Every structure is written in C-alpha cells, then in structure tokens.
C-alpha cells in the first residue's frame, strides 16, 4: 500500500473538470486508489463521489493506492495533483 498527502492549491478546489481528468488518470491503473479528506472518502474512479467530497482550496487530501501497480499509481496521482490542482 502506498500513501501520500497533498493540499489542494487550486482556487476552485476539485471542481468538475479536474475531477474528470483525475478519474481518467486513476482508471489507467489496476490498483484501487482512494481519496480521503474533508471527513469523507471516495474511490478515485468515481467522479460524482469525488465531487461530492466538496474539496476546496486548502483541503488536506490523503491518497492511497493498493494493488499490483500501486507504486506507479501513487506516483502518477501525485504528479497529476501537483500539475493540476
């Protein structure tokens, strides 16, 4: 299992468009990727659930990847968050 933390920098938070891109990114991997923050958690492959977390700027996000390609998945997610959110 791989875990890392990230603080949302984007002014609007995880809004619809980046949430959509995030889901696309997460679905590239076999591992189960979970986002937790704001007292809620969601499967990174589920757009509506991610948006339902209501993550705004400054929110602390914990990302967990578990599965055969967890290392690569966690790295890719971290890279994605840094460049988009």
């Amino acid at each position, binding site marked *: 299992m791989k875990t890392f933390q990230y603080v949302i920098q984007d002014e*609007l*938070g995880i*809004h*619809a*468009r980046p*949430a*959509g891109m995030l*889901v*696309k990114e997460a679905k590239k991997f076999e591992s189960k990727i979970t986002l937790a923050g704001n007292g809620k958690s969601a*499967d990174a*492959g*589920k*757009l*509506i*659930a991610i*948006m*339902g977390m*209501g993550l*705004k700027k400054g929110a602390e996000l914990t990302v967990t990847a578990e599965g055969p390609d967890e290392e690569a998945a966690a790295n890719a997610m971290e890279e994605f968050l840094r460049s988009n959110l």
Partner: protein
Amino acid sequence: MKVYPGKSILKEIAIGRIQFHSKEEHTVSRESISDTKQEWERYLKAKEQAADELNTLYEKALKEVGETGAAIFEVHGMMLDDDDFNDSVKNIIEAQEVNAEYAVASTGDNFSQMFAQMDDEYFQARSADIKDIAERVVRILLGKHKEQNTDNEPFILVAEDLAPSETVQMDKSKLLGFVTELGSSNSHTAILARTMNIPALIGIPVSEEMDGMLAIIDGVEGKMILEPDAAVLEEYRKKKAESEKRKVLLQQLKGKEDITLDGKKIRLYANIGGIGDVASVLSNDADGIGLFRSEFLYLEKETYPTEEEQFQAYRTVVETMGKKKVIIRTLDIGADKQADYFQLGHEDNPAMGYRAIRICLDRPEIFKTQLRAILMASAYGNVGIMYPMIISVEEVIRAKQYLEEAKAQLDQRGIRYGEVEQGIMIETPASVMISGQLAKEVDFFSIGTNDLTQYTLAIDRQNAKLDNIYDSHHPAVLEMIRMTVENGHKENCWVGICGELGADTTLTETFLKMGVDELSVSPGRVLPIREIIRNTRINP
C-alpha cells in the same frame, strides 16, 4: 393552411418554424415491469445514445466557444459513466422491478439532492448538471430524441403555458415569438414578449404535432397561420419588411433628446428583467433604467442569492449604464412569481397576500442582504432604489431604516457606496390615496399600472376570463394616476410610470399633460415613445 385566432400581446409579425415546449418530458411515471434484465439493457442503450449526443455537443461547442465552454459536455459524459450513478439505476430497476425511466429520474433526484445540500455554492450548482444528464437519458427512453435548442435556426416557441422561471432560463437569442394556450395578456410571459419586442399570442389551442411546422404570428390582427400558402407567406414577408423599414426610420431618433415641443424634458427610461436586457436598453438609446426587476436573481436559483452574487449582477448593469440612472426595484416575489426555497406556502389569494415589501419587512435579513448589494453597486454609477407594493407610510419608514442599517454595516466593513435616490412603486389604491404623505418620505414615485389596474378594478390579472373587462384605460385608473402626479409634485417628488400603460402610445400625450416626468417602458418601445414626446405640446 390553418388559421387560429388568439389574443395578441404585441403588434409585430414573426415568421418561423415552431418549437413545441413540452413539460411532459419532466414527468415520469412509475411502472412495474417483470423483465428487469431487458429494462437494464434499455437503459444501457439509452445511455449510449446520450453519450453520443453529448459527444456531438462537445464537438460543436468546441468549434463555437472553445475548450473551456465545451468542457461541461465532456464532464456530463463522464458523470453518465459514473459507477455510482449506474449502480443506483441498476439497483432501483432490480430491487423495485420498475421501468428504467423511473430509475433514472429517481437516481438523478437523489444525486442532485446530494449536491444541493453541500455548503459550497460551486458544488451546489452541480446539482443542475446531474439533473441535466438524468433528463437527457429519460428523454431518450421516452422516445423523444429531439434535442431542444441545439439547432441554430430561430424559432417560434409554442407551449401550453410558460412559468416565469421557465422563461427566465430560456435562451432568448433565437426566439421569434411565443404562442401559448393558457396565460393572460398580463402574465409574465406577456411581459417578457413586450420586453423582447417580439409578438406573442395567447388563447390558441396548441398541440405537440405543431412541432417543426412553419407558422406566421400576426400580432396586428391577432392570429396564427399554420403552414401558410405560398401567396400568404409572400404577403407576410412583405409586411414584415415594411415594419422593418419603419424600425429603421425610428432609429434616426437615436441620440435625440426626449423633450416636448414646449421644452419639458422627459426621463424616458427602460424596464429590464436581467443583465441580458441591458444591450437592448443601450441599442434603443434609453436615458436610463426605470425599473430593474431584481427577481431573476432569486427565481433562477435554488437558494437565496448571496450579497456578492447580487452585487456582481447589479454592478454589471450599473457600470454598463455609465452615468445613466439605474433604478433597482427590491425583491418583488410572491403571487405569480414563486421560488420554492422561500417556502411561501399556498395562499388562496396570492395577489393580495404575502408578497414583495411584505416579505422583505418580515424577513429583514433577506432584505438587508439585497440592500447592501445595491448600495455596494451604487459606488459604480447612478443608482436608485424602489420599494414595491407599498400601502402605508410606516412601511416606507421601516424600509428606509433598513437601508440606514445596511449603510452602517457597510461603513463598519469599510465598504464605500454612492448617493442613492429612494422611491416607491405606486400600485395600490391605498398608496394613491395617501400619496401626499408618502411623497414627504421619498424622492420619486413610479406608478405600476398593471397592479394598480388590478387592485383598482378588483380584477385578477391572471384570470384570462376577465381579459375582456380588464380595462387599464378605465377612468378610475387614469384619475389615480393624475392624483398621484399632483400629490407627488406638491412635495417635489418626481413621478413616473413603469407599468405597461407607460408604453401605450395612445395615452402618452394624456400622461405628459398630467405632468408625468418619467416613462419607463420595455426597450423596444423607447423610440416610438420618443417620437410622440417630441411631437407633443403640453400647454396648448
């Protein structure tokens, strides 16, 4: 060719194809089914088609408005593919043994509720996206494949009835005219038609088969011609061209002063119902805005608009108008204008009920939020505030106190604001009778002739059966107007008319002779009224 007589709202002609607006597609019935597997297959097929539609929309938007504007359709496509959404649909079909339409509609409702309850505005607004995708799939399941409002051709909107909230949300740039079966000539749909200066007919039996047919609205004679013969079509094309020519002639009045032959300067203002109307105020060269209906901010939403949202909307209008006057009417909700979240409850007689200033004085927090937003916008131009539905001096004094409180709150926050004129709507017989006292409290009066006629004649203006005796030229109404002007002037209060009567060219001369200082009309009526003002002598 078929001819249908109806009641005309505006004397203009429109020629175009009909788009039938049906409410049915939002009502879904719950039906039991036995083959849940087949129902699930039906859903998957509809979902696929919806995805195709969204793809087409995305491509189209990408070309027309670019990446940012198109992204929403891509997101809709992904929401449609969301596992939770699809699992919920599947669950409902299987567990309840019901039709796919019902399962999709319920899922859409549930998910959109989830967003609506979030405490952030951005996420709250996403509930509309969920509803949108659910409705798209439901429409496909019901076999109504047609995409509304997607083709570029302008159209004539035909509907049984239209609620103010529906007309508010409509894309009006492609609208040629309205035809409805229900509604009266004083309904808000009618007001919208006047504001947009497009013809509308009411009292015409409509049916869904009319969708896509070619039609002519003859607003002069009050009839709709369905699938006209070639000769008739040609005749109307000519008529339309002539009326266009007259409009061009009126254009020459742009930039000219609104001054009578004997030198009285009249304030010729325009009425607007939203930011989108400002362009036509400017293109018709009005001196200002005499009635900015603030309701659209409330009707378009699912919850109370914030101070910031309101401020941005008011500021946009005020800034665009530059030094010209913008009179913002405080919230006039209730009666036929309803927003669910106000929870106003059912009333037997809403026109005489809990509405407008009565709600504002009863729920001061809502009122003060609006007053602060208006004050903040006043720093950017020339703003007036107008309170609707006044019946007593006490109400005016209280409204003014709230304005002072709002100012004090802004002072505390160090936010600046400009000088604002305060006025009231004169639309109840009570306010006319005590206009002498009211005039001592305010800077101006604006006579709302629609409600004033309704209350003076005791005729419900929403009741189409009474249209034949709803006479706004009634001597009692005209006397009320004269009295208001006289009493206002005694206290140095300027007096205007912002109701439909203000745009009635047969009465313009009468009003000017009464001493009316301001006429606020729908933007399209500014130039015809200017023509009369410039040809009228007040003192013979």
